[in-house]
């Protein structure tokens, strides 16, 4: 575990200095500005729009951060061959992958924290507050979703070995992962056969990302969203446990594949 942490911190530092990631800072500012603009145009309360756009931004910035992290690292590994010197050190390959997960997740956390700070400043400027436990919990679970997606992108980076393939497979999974609930409805409508088997396979393979979206379940509405939590502890434990188990399964698969890979 110590080796994975050392690798994770090094990857975090390395990515932090990469100029590609300044794009994300611009994205964060853009999301803040957009929520103000739409708040002024829209019928709904500005606080609700600020919250909804903020959480959407948190979800996207988390995913784009982990995707870019793994794309940059995959490019360095395949084109610059930086990996050979690392893998002859006393480091197991699974420790290296875990380090990548740690580094990318830390950077996602930093970017999300930056966006949340922008959202809170915008709220303060516009006269409403997003600073509430429910809001922070919703942010936390979206960040947890980014960790799960980081494991998924990592698996595709190991399987695909090329940057475009990794981006396409990962983004496809990210989009489909929001609709696994619809797959349950499809299964109910299907009588059987190959289509049902295919839908079932997809249902169990794809991450159910809707689990991490607590924004709709939490009592965040109203002008002032400093209301308490109405949900039970199990409502929080389930996405935590589901995310951990799914990420672990994906990491095991990625490690198994990476162990066999020729460098």
């Amino acid at each position, binding site marked *: 575990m110590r*080796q994975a942490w*050392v*690798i994770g911190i*090094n990857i975090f*530092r*390395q990515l932090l*200095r*990469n100029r590609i990631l300044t794009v994300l800072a611009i994205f964060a500012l853009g999301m803040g500005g957009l929520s103000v603009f739409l708040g002024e145009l829209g019928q709904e309360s500005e606080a609700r729009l600020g919250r909804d756009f903020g959480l959407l931004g948190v979800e996207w910035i988390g995913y784009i951060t982990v995707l870019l992290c793994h794309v940059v690292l995959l490019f*360095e590994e395949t084109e*610059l*061959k*930086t990996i*050979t*010197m*690392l*893998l*002859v*050190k*006393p*480091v*197991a390959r699974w420790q290296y992958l875990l380090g990548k997960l740690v580094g990318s997740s830390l950077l996602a956390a930093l970017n999300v924290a930056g966006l949340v700070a922008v959202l809170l400043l915008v709220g303060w400027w516009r006269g409403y507050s997003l600073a509430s436990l429910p809001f922070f919990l919703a942010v936390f679970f979206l960040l947890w979703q980014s960790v799960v997606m980081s494991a998924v992108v990592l698996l595709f980076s190991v399987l695909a070995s090329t940057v475009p393939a990794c981006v396409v497979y990962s983004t496809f999974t990210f989009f489909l992962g929001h609709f696994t609930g619809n797959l349950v409805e499809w299964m109910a409508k299907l009588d059987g056969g190959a289509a049902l088997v295919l839908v079932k396979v997809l249902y169990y393979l794809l991450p159910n990302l809707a689990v991490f979206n607590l924004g709709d379940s939490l009592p965040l509405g109203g002008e002032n969203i400093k209301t308490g939590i109405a949900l039970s502890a199990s409502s929080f434990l389930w996405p935590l446990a589901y995310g951990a188990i799914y990420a672990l399964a994906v990491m095991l698969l990625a490690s198994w594949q990476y162990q066999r890979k*020729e*460098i």
Partner: protein
Amino acid sequence: MSPAFAIEVIEVQKRYKSGDFWHPIKSQALRGVSLQVRAGEVYGLVGVNGAGKTTLMKVMTGLLRPDQGRSLVFGLSASSMEARARFGYLPELPSFPKYLSAREVLDFYGRLQGMPDKPRRARVAEMLGWVGLAEALDKPIREYSKGMQQRVGLAQALLHDPELVFLDEPISGLDPLGIKQMRDLFLRLKSQGKTIFFNSHILSEVERLCDRVGLMHRGRMLLQAPVADLASRHASTVTLAFRSLGPAQRRALKALRLAPSQENRVWTVAVPNAQLAQVLAKVKLPHGAAPTVISANSPLETAFIEAVRAEEAG
């Protein structure tokens, strides 16, 4: 009991797969290679590009798994953590994360080797000074030249003071000063009793630096011998070119057990240095038709050329 060899490679075979699912292409990179390197020895592996030298080094360092055979480092599997802690590795044309400085990169590798904080920091500064990067140690690596990156690679290979060092083409890409520094490094490591295994296609440097050499060609080990033995068995030669060579002159060369060959109307013949005066005396050339020296080969070059020709002749 300590193992007899620092490196032991036993009948290693390696095949690469490329192409796609419908058109798989398999190429045999290593064909039953065996070698042993004793502790404290400097071993040079030579061969033309594509001979399998880098593949063999990757197998020896545990980066590649052989299809058949075994590779041991100090009697341990090359991919074991215990073995990896005991060797350093410099790949051909090393590259590093470009936004980190040399100090940060070395500090990271030192942490992975489990070096404690204080000695690690001191050793990083010492190694960067030793490879001549003391003034550039906090610059981002993207501002480094290829030669400077090669030096950082060397520093990381030696950072944890390993007993064995693998160097893949350490001289290629270096300027004359860099080559001189690399020679000094070899001598210093050798005086410290380190085992050095390196790949190169620059035969003169291998001959100058190594105790023993291995000659590889098309995935096979053609020859392994101490450099001193090769020097005694294979004389230095010069290759002479003649614009014209009559039947009598060719007979004179054959009588001296030399084999002239003709290509594009030019006759060439490889002559041992010791026989050179005899050849010029026996082959009576008309005035103004002196031969041209087109190359001079060291004993290792001669041995290499002979071994490759014999292999290709079947």
